[in-house]
Every structure is written in structure tokens, then in C-alpha cells.
């Protein structure tokens, strides 16, 4: 037991921070990249770029959109023609992409068979409708060039919440535990940081361990609201891994017939051919819009039962909220059944999820872009903050071992040093190499190889493991320099490899007005410059004369005892 509360919190902060710090660096770094997963996917499919530019030009030249009622009526007709009596649900999304609406349904007469003979069902159709012409967009007739098979930026998203490329359960659980440790470390860190207000703007450079502590504290305090939000909302997004019991117990307590509903609602279906199609949708839309609301989507649910329900989702015109309001109508008669009650918990949940994922597009595309850039910068600072934390752990113990592990301490320290490099710089190298692989791998892989997008992801993992092996074989400081230099080269040369393979780089992208693709390359280059700067600093530190290193040591021991106790593990 530690003597004071603050010392206990310090101990907790150090060890929760260290053991889960590497996992958290992975989560934060992939999360930073996940903010711009869309642009990254766009960059990784250069074959589609010319096509998308044409589409954007056509969109600008289109006549204004038809009324919502007209468009909904057209999609309604298409859904009826799609044999809705064989579906479980259908969905209409207005403004799905700029200039287009989307509709799709679930066809329960298709798909694989379950053991009980019911069909699982499959998407019946997924169609876009041009808002100006109320027809399928003309570009559907264009020849779509085959884009290279890649997972794109979604790979980073999946890594972010499950540490795997396919959402394995063990990954979800690990991220959940790491998130709890993150919040524990955050709160304990604030408790331990006695002079949080006095040291608000403090950063003393060139002072070794003191500077690392200042950097760690400053970056944490500056992004504190963001860190609290992202940790808390992240935990809520993973709720079913933390609190699995309620859903599980409900499922277990139901009869076998009801349980089959989780897999297919076939058992509860009325015989399909006796059903009537649903009521007209346009009047429902007009009814909702007459209350000063803007309809954003419709959904037909429980279609194959005796009482289908149509839900109309709408946003207020003069205010922007985080969630749409839902109005329910009887599927046959069109009678208004009531508004879906919104619980306070539901509102909080919705806000938290959208803040976490940057889904604020109902405020406008520019607003979402502004918010996402701030998420990106804060997240990058958070990653750097945790990297500074794990580095600080070893900087302190390089000068004087604290022997926390008895005789094994030097070996544990060596392992921690290697994991530090691999988790921070090694991971970054793997991320930029993923982009390199996207360009370097041929479009068609030789027979016998795995699918191309799997090869890209396997390459990521292989390179990451290689950086860990490198970190174990080289001395710690040398490993930092070499990996930072490699990272810098890979980031700065990304446009060059792009130019060599596709004939275009950020210059051409900017000329064409493609800010997304140019942004990916320019941001990579900025990180390359930062890595080069860091490599230079570490190399200067290695080359510093032994005399100066001893002087640095003396500076540490001159510090007042209170500070050392503060930092004490």
C-alpha cells in the first residue's frame, strides 16, 4: 500500500498506463487515421478518381432537385415492383449522397438456409435515384473501371475498434479493457498532477526527464475535453462487450420460437402471397413536412406481419439536432400511430456516438470537415501524449533502475524499450507501408496468392512485426533513430511512389481540385517532416558527449524532492 492517496494514484497511473499504453497507442493512432478513412479509401482507389471527378462535374451541372414527395413516390413505385410482400423491411434514404437518394430492401426469399429451413434473406436491391430526374443516375450506364481490390481506410477503422482486420471478439474485449484503463489513467493522471493550473502553459525544453514530463502533461491537459469525450463515448460504443448480460439473459429466457426471431422472422410471417402492398408514401411525407420538418428517410418494418409499420424520419428545419425524430404510421391505412419516444439515455447515446465517430453531417459538410480536422489533430496529440508517457517511463529508469521486477528487471526494461519503439514508430511505419503496398502490389496477383486486400493487410502486419524484431535487435536509441528515419523517408516519398505507379501525385490532385487525395499525401508529408525532426533530435542526443549526459543527470537530481515524489511510481 502506498502512503498517500496521491501516491496510490501515481502508482495506478504508471502501471495502468504502461501495460495498456501500447494497446492504447495502437487504438489512438488507427483512430486518428480512421477520422479520414474516406479520403484514404479514395486515395487507395486511383482508378475511380477520374470517374468521380466526372460525377462531381455532372452534379454541379444538374438542374435543381425535384420535390421530396415526387422522389419518394418514384422510389415507392420501385419498391412495390421489387415484390415487397417478400421482404422484411425496406429503407429510403434522402440525400444519401449529394444529388442522390437511396432505397433498398431485404428480400427474405433469398440467401442461405438456416438449419430450421428458413431463409436468411439478402439485400433485394440497392439503388440510387438522381434527385433532379427521379431516375437511376445516368452514370450507372458508364463503364465502371475495376478499382484495385483494397480494404481502404476501413482497415484502420476495424483495427481501431477490434485490433484485427475482421472484428474478432478477443480484439473487441481487449479494446474495451484498454478503454477502461485509459479512463483510469486519465483520472488518476489529473489527480496526480498537483500543479495542473500553475503548470498549464509550462514546457521546459532541453531538460531531459523534466521536459518529457512537461510534454506528457501539456499534451494531456490541452486535449483533456477531447480525451474525456473520446474515452467515454468509446466505452459506450463497446457497451455490449462490457455489459453482455442483459441482452444474453433476454435471449436465453425466450421460447425457442421467439429465439428463432433473432435469426429470421420467418416463423412470425403471414403467408406472403396474401399480403397487400403498403399504403402510398408521398402523403405521409407531406403530413410530416407540414409540421415544419425536413424528411430525411423512411423505413417500412415488419412487412410480413399482420401490422406493418412505416417510420418517417425527419429533422427540424431551423435547428440542427444530433438525431432525427421518428414518426410511426400504420403500413396499410397510413394512420398516424405516434412519435417514437426518445429517452434521455437514447439522446445522450446518440450524441456520444456521433461525437466519437465525427458523424455530424446534418450540420453540413463543411461543419463536419471542420470537426473532423479538430478530431484528427486532438487524436494525434493524444497519441503523442501516450507515446511521451511510455517513453517517460523508460527515460526515468535509464538513469537509475527502480528494480520493480527483481532480478529480471534489466530484461523487462529491455522488452519495454523495444515495445515502445515498435508500438509508436513501428506502427506508423506499418501504416504508411500499407499505403505503399496499395500502390506497389499489382492489380492482379499471381495464382495461388491470397486476395489482394488480404495481402495488403498481411503486409501491414508483417512489417509491424519486423519493426518489433528490429527494435529487439538494435540498441534502444539506435532503434528509435533508424525507425524514425525510415518512417520519415516512407512518408516523404509517398507522392513519388504514387507518381511512379499511377502517374499522378498531389500536384495533379490539387490542380484537379481533389482535396481529399491531395490531403492524404500532404498530411503524410507533414508527419514525415515531424519524424525527420524527431530522428535528428534523438541522433543529437546519442552523439552528445558523455560529459553532457552526466550534466543532464545532475540536473535531474537537483530537482526538489517534492517533484520526484510526485513522479514516483
Amino acid at each position, binding site marked *: 500500500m502506498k502512503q498517500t492517496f496521491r501516491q496510490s494514484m501515481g502508482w495506478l497511473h504508471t502501471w495502468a498506463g504502461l501495460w495498456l499504453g501500447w494497446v492504447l497507442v495502437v487504438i489512438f493512432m488507427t483512430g486518428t487515421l480512421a477520422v479520414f478513412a474516406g479520403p484514404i479509401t479514395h486515395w487507395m482507389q486511383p482508378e475511380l478518381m477520374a470517374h468521380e471527378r466526372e460525377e462531381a462535374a455532372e452534379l454541379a451541372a444538374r438542374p435543381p432537385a425535384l420535390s421530396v414527395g415526387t422522389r419518394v413516390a418514384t422510389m415507392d413505385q420501385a419498391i412495390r415492383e421489387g415484390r415487397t410482400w417478400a421482404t422484411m423491411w425496406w429503407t429510403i434514404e434522402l440525400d444519401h449522397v449529394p444529388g442522390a437518394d437511396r432505397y433498398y430492401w431485404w428480400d427474405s426469399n433469398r440467401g442461405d438456409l438456416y438449419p430450421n429451413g428458413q431463409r436468411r434473406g439478402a439485400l433485394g436491391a440497392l439503388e440510387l435515384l438522381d434527385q433532379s430526374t427521379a431516375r437511376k443516375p445516368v452514370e450507372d450506364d458508364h463503364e465502371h473501371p475495376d478499382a484495385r481490390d483494397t480494404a481502404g481506410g476501413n482497415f484502420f477503422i476495424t483495427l481501431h475498434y477490434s485490433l484485427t482486420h475482421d472484428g474478432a471478439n478477443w480484439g473487441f474485449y481487449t479494446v474495451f479493457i484498454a478503454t477502461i484503463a485509459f479512463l483510469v489513467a486519465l483520472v488518476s493522471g489529473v489527480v496526480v498532477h498537483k500543479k495542473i493550473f*500553475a503548470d*498549464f*502553459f*509550462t*514546457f*521546459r*525544453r532541453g531538460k531531459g526527464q523534466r521536459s518529457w514530463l512537461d510534454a506528457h502533461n*501539456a499534451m494531456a491537459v*490541452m*486535449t483533456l*475535453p*477531447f480525451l474525456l*469525450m473520446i474515452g467515454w463515448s468509446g466505452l459506450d460504443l463497446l457497451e455490449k462487450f462490457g455489459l453482455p448480460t442483459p441482452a444474453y439473459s433476454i435471449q436465453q429466457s425466450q421460447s425457442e420460437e421467439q429465439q428463432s426471431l433473432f435469426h429470421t422472422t420467418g416463423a412470425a410471417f403471414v403467408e406472403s402471397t396474401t399480403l397487400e402492398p403498403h399504403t402510398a408514401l408521398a402523403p405521409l411525407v407531406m403530413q410530416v413536412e407540414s409540421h415544419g420538418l425536413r424528411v430525411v428517410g423512411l423505413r417500412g418494418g415488419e412487412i410480413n406481419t399482420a401490422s406493418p409499420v412505416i417510420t418517417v424520419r425527419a429533422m427540424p428545419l431551423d*435547428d*440542427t*439536432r*444530433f438525431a432525427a425524430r421518428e414518426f410511426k404510421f400504420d403500413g396499410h391505412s397510413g394512420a398516424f400511430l405516434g412519435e417514437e419516444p426518445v429517452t434521455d439515455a437514447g439522446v445522450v447515446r446518440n450524441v456520444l456516438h456521433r*461525437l466519437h465517430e465525427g458523424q*455530424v453531417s446534418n*450540420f*453540413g459538410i*463543411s*461543419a463536419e470537415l*471542420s*470537426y473532423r480536422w*479538430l*478530431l484528427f*489533430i*486532438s487524436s494525434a*496529440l493524444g497519441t503523442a501524449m501516450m507515446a511521451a508517457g511510455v517513453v517517460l517511463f523508460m527515460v526515468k529508469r535509464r538513469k537509475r533502475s527502480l528494480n520493480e521486477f527483481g532480478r529480471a528487471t534489466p530484461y523487462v526494461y529491455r522488452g519495454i524499450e523495444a515495445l515502445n519503439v515498435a508500438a509508436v514508430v513501428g506502427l506508423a511505419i506499418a501504416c504508411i507501408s500499407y499505403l505503399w503496398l496499395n500502390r506497389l502490389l499489382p492489380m492482379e496477383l499471381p495464382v495461388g496468392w491470397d486476395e489482394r486486400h488480404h495481402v495488403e493487410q498481411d503486409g501491414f502486419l508483417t512489417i509491424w512485426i519486423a519493426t518489433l524484431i528490429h527494435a529487439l535487435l538494435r540498441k534502444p536509441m539506435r532503434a528509435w533513430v533508424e525507425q524514425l528515419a525510415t518512417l520519415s523517408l516512407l512518408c516523404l516519398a509517398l507522392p513519388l511512389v504514387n507518381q511512379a505507379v499511377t502517374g499522378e501525385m498531389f500536384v495533379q490532385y490539387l490542380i484537379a481540385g481533389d482535396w481529399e487525395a491531395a490531403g492524404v499525401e500532404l498530411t503524410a508529408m507533414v508527419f514525415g517532416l515531424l519524424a525527420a525532426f524527431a530522428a535528428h533530435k534523438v541522433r543529437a542526443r546519442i552523439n552528445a558527449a558523455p560529459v553532457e549526459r552526466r550534466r543532464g543527470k545532475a540536473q535531474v537530481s537537483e530537482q526538489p524532492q517534492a517533484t520526484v515524489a510526485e513522479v514516483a511510481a
Partner: protein
Amino acid sequence: MSGRTLTDKARHHWGIFARVLAAALGGYALTTLLSFLLLADRGRCGMSAMILAGIASFALGLAAFTSLALAMDRHHEQMLGRRKAPPRQKLIFRIVGWLLLALSLRASILGWGWSLGSAIWLGLLTLSAITLILLLGWRPRAARWTGIAALAAGIILSGVLP
């Protein structure tokens, strides 16, 4: 130390404040008036309004943090080279700092609305604070001038916001 008494120095510094404050309010009033007269689509929530709001909020945040830092001995010495600020001056720096933070929040809300504006404000404050920390670490004497420039830019741009 010259022959001036403490009261003289306080009056001198307050005089500077009064002048800066008057100039800021004057600039704000002037740009508000001009924007009413000259900008036809003032008040639309387009991209340019967001950019203005973002820069204004960031600039006011930087000015606010500079002012709050000037109330701290360590940073006062870094920025102005003098040993300590007298207590009344510290109080003025703190009041001005918090006032500027409120104005920074206002600019952000004008650009993005209440809900998203509050969230974005916190993100912009991160940028302002990091900027000041970097300035204090590498160019402390320049921090005083960036503070004044940020104050001017923030106030003037706020005048153009709806």
C-alpha cells in the same frame, strides 16, 4: 527601478489597457457597421462564415490564454522580461483572459450553432493553447506580440460574423 511609485506604474499600465480596449471596441464597432453596409449575405452559414468564425475563435482563444499566462509570474517574466506583475495587474489580466474566452466561445457558436459550436470551441482552444505553449517554449518574447495581433484579429473578425 526608476523613480516612479507603484501607483504611477499601475496607472501607466491601466492606461495602456484602456487604450487597447478602446481600440478593440472601436475596431469591432467599425467592422460591424461596415459589414452591415457592405456585405449583402451576412449571416449565411456557409463555408466562409465558418472559416471566419474558426479564425476568430482561435485568435480570441490565443489572446485569452496569453492574457491568462501574463498573470502567472513564470510566464510574465518569459514574455515581458520583468520580474513580477503587481497584484492589480494580475487581476486585470485574469479578467480580460476569461472575458476573451467567453468571446471565443461566442464566435464559435456564431459559426456552428450552439451544439456543434461548443464542441468545436473546445477543439479550437486546444490549438490556441498548444500554440501558446510552443511560443513560450521557443520564442517567449514574440508571444506578447502574437497575443496583441490575435486580439486584434479576433475582435475585428467577430465584427463580421452575424
